[in-house]
């Protein structure tokens, strides 16, 4: 079997709707349509976002490593997200601010709206306007936008290690993070605040 599948345009577009359906369903079920839950991570009251995000990354990354090692999936035919270091660092930082202020990101705003949140619809209009703003300012931004092109570099390539080595590091990191978050949520209070009261456990 050759993966990714070679599909006709129509089938591929129909698959897009079905894939989106599952995407939206799991977002909603994880509480990712709720802006209180989405921003909870930044106030250290609810860590559902990083828990869900890193669980998803680990599952998909493990599948990709496994399928490509078994020569079932031809990674050269999978669209790898290219790296443009500085614009993506700046874009990510700006994105964090927009996420905190609006309480959503583009996919979760769609999930929020679908669960009846009209404020998420306002955010969706804002996102659309923001992309237009970028398009209008593009001539001035083009230099920065195209800076530090590192093509489709991956961490295993960059660090010259096997992808399983890197994946193990991600597993250990995520496992430690999950442990800390669970402990923190069970206590229901901020350990930083606790420390400042002098009660170090």
């Amino acid at each position: 079997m050759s993966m990714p599948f070679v599909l006709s345009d129509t089938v591929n577009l129909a698959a897009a709707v079905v894939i989106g359906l599952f995407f939206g369903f799991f977002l909603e079920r994880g509480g990712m349509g709720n802006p209180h839950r989405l921003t909870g991570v930044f106030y250290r009251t609810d860590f559902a976002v990083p828990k869900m995000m890193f669980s998803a990354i680990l599952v998909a990354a493990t599948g990709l490593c496994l399928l490509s090692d078994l020569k079932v999936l031809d990674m050269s035919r999978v669209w790898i997200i290219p790296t443009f270091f500085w614009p993506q660092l700046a874009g990510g930082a700006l994105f964090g601010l927009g996420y905190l202020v609006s309480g959503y990101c583009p996919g979760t705003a769609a999930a929020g709206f679908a669960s009846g949140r009209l404020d998420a619809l306002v955010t969706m209009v804002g996102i659309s306007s923001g992309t237009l703003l970028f398009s209008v300012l593009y001539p001035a931004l083009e230099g920065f936008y195209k800076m530090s092109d590192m093509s489709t570099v991956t961490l295993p390539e960059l660090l010259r290690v096997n992808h399983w080595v890197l994946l193990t590091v991600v597993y250990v990191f995520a496992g430690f993070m999950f442990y800390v978050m669970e402990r923190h949520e069970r206590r229901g209070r901020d350990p930083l605040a606790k420390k400042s009261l002098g009660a170090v456990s």
Partner: protein
Amino acid sequence: MKKNGFWSPYLAGAGLGLTLLASFIIAGQGLGASRAFTVVAGKAMNAVAPEYTATLSYLSKYLERSAFSDWTFLEVTGVLIGALIGALVFRGFKLRFDRGSSMSVGMRVMTAFGGGIILGFASRLARGCTSGVALTGGAQLALSGWVFVIAMFASGFLFAALFRRLWS
């Protein structure tokens, strides 16, 4: 199911991860979201002001084909349906204008819209959002995904410390 009505984020995350993996296998690409907003906004602007829109070189790649033959637009349409199904089946659907406890409605309109503008702009600068760069790139162990994730969380924590009363 937890008492808040949602699934465990680990379970929902595993489902999301399998969806992402299926997307790589079936379509040869990961998930996306912000592109759909650019397509819709571009089409709308093109309908209102076609001459001006034609001068915006950046938008041309989003206007090449109809929205209904754009993969990400259709995928996000699926997201709306899938989330609606989830909310209806598990009784999470409720019409409301959600906001922080200390946020007035007027303030919420501003944070929802203003924050949205920043999100839209930032996703174009970063070539994608939480779906297209963070999740997809993260799963590919691509440098882009991890740079974006780290920058996003670092910035969110920093600004949350500055805007303590926004959501807490």
